[in-house]
């Protein structure tokens, strides 16, 4: 599809949201379009950045991610302190579930060549594997949420928020010091074998940080992705009478039961997810179709299993690279700092699996 008719379709959907759903949702859809356009336009891949660091000692992708986290934290933390009742941080509990989930997620995102945001924008760009993975990601996310109570029973601490405990200035200083430490380690590891900075990725990082902050200011909650996926699959499972939400500890909670009963257009993460898909589609529409690399049956099977596990593990880990890493760290959640090393350890395995199956 050409960009102009697509822009009309997107504008029409935005008007529909503003008229029939809520002005806030129309605004969040626009934020989602921005996120999708930046992710796809700058090819800002969290998975690829980590893989290039591991395999080629190229630090530019990871350093851009650190800039994104620092800029988002520098704005989000003072906002959270200024509006403690209106805005919420992405607080997940440090737990066995988090350790297992982040490790598995880190491994699977390398195999599936996409994390939460990566799967969305690459599906929007029309990349076949990511389009096929999106539905199984949603099923996995639903299964993860439906079994979350059993994982939490293995051991969990209450969520720990740096802004709540230390106040915004100290929380921000601690966060920036942590990010600087990681950056120092990344530069040392790379051995200066590749340029440290990539201008396109840096611009992408700053724009993504600005849009993530806008998401927080408008929605009152940080940017997230996998909750929406799980919701979509839960709706289908409940409608098909495969699952009774009222008998499930997670989906019978008032917030989730209410979300399940209402249109997905009222759900914050769903509407930004749709925006990301639309933004990436708009970017793809302006370019000639890229030839997709042919895949054999084994690669498809491995990719789809990885996609299912991505969804499942992202719920166990209380978010993907966006909900746990970007939103967790930038809003001062301890769980984000536990997520990153565990997911990186998983990625060290994942890149080997990826090579083994010749992706």
């Amino acid at each position, binding site marked *: 599809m050409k960009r102009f008719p697509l822009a009309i379709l997107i504008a029409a959907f935005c008007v529909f949201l503003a008229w029939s759903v809520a002005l806030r949702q129309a605004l969040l859809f626009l934020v989602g379009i921005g996120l999708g356009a930046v992710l796809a336009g700058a090819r800002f891949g969290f998975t690829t950045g980590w893989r290039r660091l591991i395999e080629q000692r190229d630090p530019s992708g990871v350093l851009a991610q650190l800039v994104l986290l620092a800029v988002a934290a520098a704005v989000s933390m003072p906002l959270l302190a200024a509006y403690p009742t209106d805005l919420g941080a992405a607080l997940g509990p440090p737990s066995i579930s988090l350790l297992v989930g982040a490790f598995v997620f880190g491994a699977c995102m390398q195999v599936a060549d996409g994390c939460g945001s990566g799967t969305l924008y690459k599906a929007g760009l029309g990349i076949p594997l990511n389009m096929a993975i999106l539905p199984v990601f949603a099923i996995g996310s639903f299964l993860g949420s439906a079994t979350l109570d059993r994982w939490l029973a293995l051991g969990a601490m209450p969520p720990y928020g740096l802004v709540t405990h230390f106040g915004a200035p100290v929380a921000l200083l601690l966060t920036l010091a942590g990010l600087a430490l990681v950056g120092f380690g990344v530069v040392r590891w790379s051995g200066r074998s590749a340029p440290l900075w990539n201008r396109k990725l840096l611009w992408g990082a700053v724009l993504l940080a600005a849009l993530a902050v806008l998401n927080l200011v408008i929605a*009152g909650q940080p940017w997230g992705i996998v909750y929406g996926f799980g919701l979509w699959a839960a709706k289908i499972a409940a409608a098909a009478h495969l699952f009774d939400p009222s008998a499930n500890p997670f989906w019978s909670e008032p917030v*989730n039961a209410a979300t399940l009963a209402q249109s997905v257009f*009222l759900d914050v993460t769903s509407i930004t997810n749709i925006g990301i*898909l639309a933004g990436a589609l708009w970017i793809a529409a302006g370019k000639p179709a890229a030839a997709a690399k042919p895949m054999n049956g084994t690669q498809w099977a491995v990719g789809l299993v990885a996609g299912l596990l991505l969804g499942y593990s992202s719920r166990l880990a209380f978010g993907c690279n966006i909900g746990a890493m970007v939103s967790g760290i930038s809003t001062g959640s301890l769980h984000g700092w536990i997520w990153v090393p565990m997911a990186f350890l998983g990625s060290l395995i994942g890149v080997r699996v990826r090579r083994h199956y010749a992706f």
Partner: protein
Amino acid sequence: MHFRFLAAAFWIVLAGFFAWDWTHSAPVNVRTEPPLIAAGSGVAPSGGHCASTF
């Protein structure tokens, strides 16, 4: 060619799901819509999030 078919199927299924959901979910009450901007609204965030345990 079959990738074009996959892309078309992807968008048709996705749009079909959203249309089905719109017709089968509780009607939206636009009189109780959330504040346009949460910051400064005095309204606590009420949506689900990936990091929440509930």
